[in-house]
């Protein structure tokens, strides 16, 4: 495996964990992601975005999963040949009902189709203010606040939601 060593740490830096994401454990994992990638990337802004995506995806799994366990993966790897920087990726995989899968697909498709993620976020915030239960903002927040692209797939009969971004360190 190619390791890129620099003043900014060692890349790739990836992990995957299957566990039962209770509220208490989500906080622990989010703190780990934040502090680990802050050290690896030497960038508190980027590590904060990864932590936000981790937390929201894990809470989604708790709220909408049909079983107690989920697989979280976080990856920071060198960008494909010809590109500077890193590709960062946070994914959550768990079982989900057809209804929840359809809702996640609806949100991710809408995000993919919109021209202005922040304007879409504002629309969803207004809708959320009228909702009786839940906010419906978790995935949109990842896109709008963490600047990550969202994708959905079915892997081994489980729903996988992936948040990705390309990151170019500011070397100045």
């Amino acid at each position, binding site marked *: 495996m190619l390791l890129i060593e620099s003043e900014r740490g060692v890349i790739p830096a990836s992990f995957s964990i299957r566990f039962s994401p209770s*509220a208490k454990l*989500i*906080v622990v994992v*989010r703190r780990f992601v934040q502090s680990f990638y802050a050290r690896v990337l030497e960038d*508190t*802004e980027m590590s*904060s*975005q990864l*932590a*936000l995506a981790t*937390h*929201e995806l894990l*809470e989604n799994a*708790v*709220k909408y999963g049909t079983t107690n366990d989920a697989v979280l993966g976080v990856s920071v790897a060198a960008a494909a040949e010809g590109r500077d920087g890193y590709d960062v990726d946070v994914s959550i995989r768990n079982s989900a009902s057809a209804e929840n899968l359809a809702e996640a697909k609806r949100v991710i498709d809408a995000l993919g189709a919109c021209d202005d993620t*922040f304007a879409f*976020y*504002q629309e969803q*915030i*207004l809708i*959320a*203010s009228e*909702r009786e239960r*839940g*906010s419906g*903002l*978790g995935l949109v*927040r990842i896109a*709008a*606040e*963490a600047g990550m692209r969202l994708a959905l797939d079915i892997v081994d009969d489980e729903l996988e939601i992936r948040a990705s971004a390309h990151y170019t360190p500011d070397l100045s």
Partner: protein
Amino acid sequence: MTPSSLQAGELRASASHSGELVSLAFAGNADGRADSDLEAFLHELHAEIAALAVTQVDVDIRALEFMNSSCFKGFITWIVQVRRMKPPSRYRIRFLATSKYPWQKRSLHAISFFGGSELIEVVTED
């Protein structure tokens, strides 16, 4: 003030009132264990504040490590309640934030855009 404090999960909040100013302070983690209690807390506080001659509410989140989207919605719902007040009795909300927690800048940008500059002010310390 009643309620004057909140403890839910790892979230702690306190409220105090002095003259035309109400001060709220949040600390810890606002996550899935706290969203319902936080929304109820802000709803009750708003009802009390609306009955007072308050012109500004300071919301100190400098010790708030993280806020999830469900708790974020609690603040949005509160802001909508304030927006619906008639201007003479409406109060401003000033968030006191820190760059130590980068999520605060991004979330407060979204909140302040939603609430509008006449209603929301954000002060961030380095």
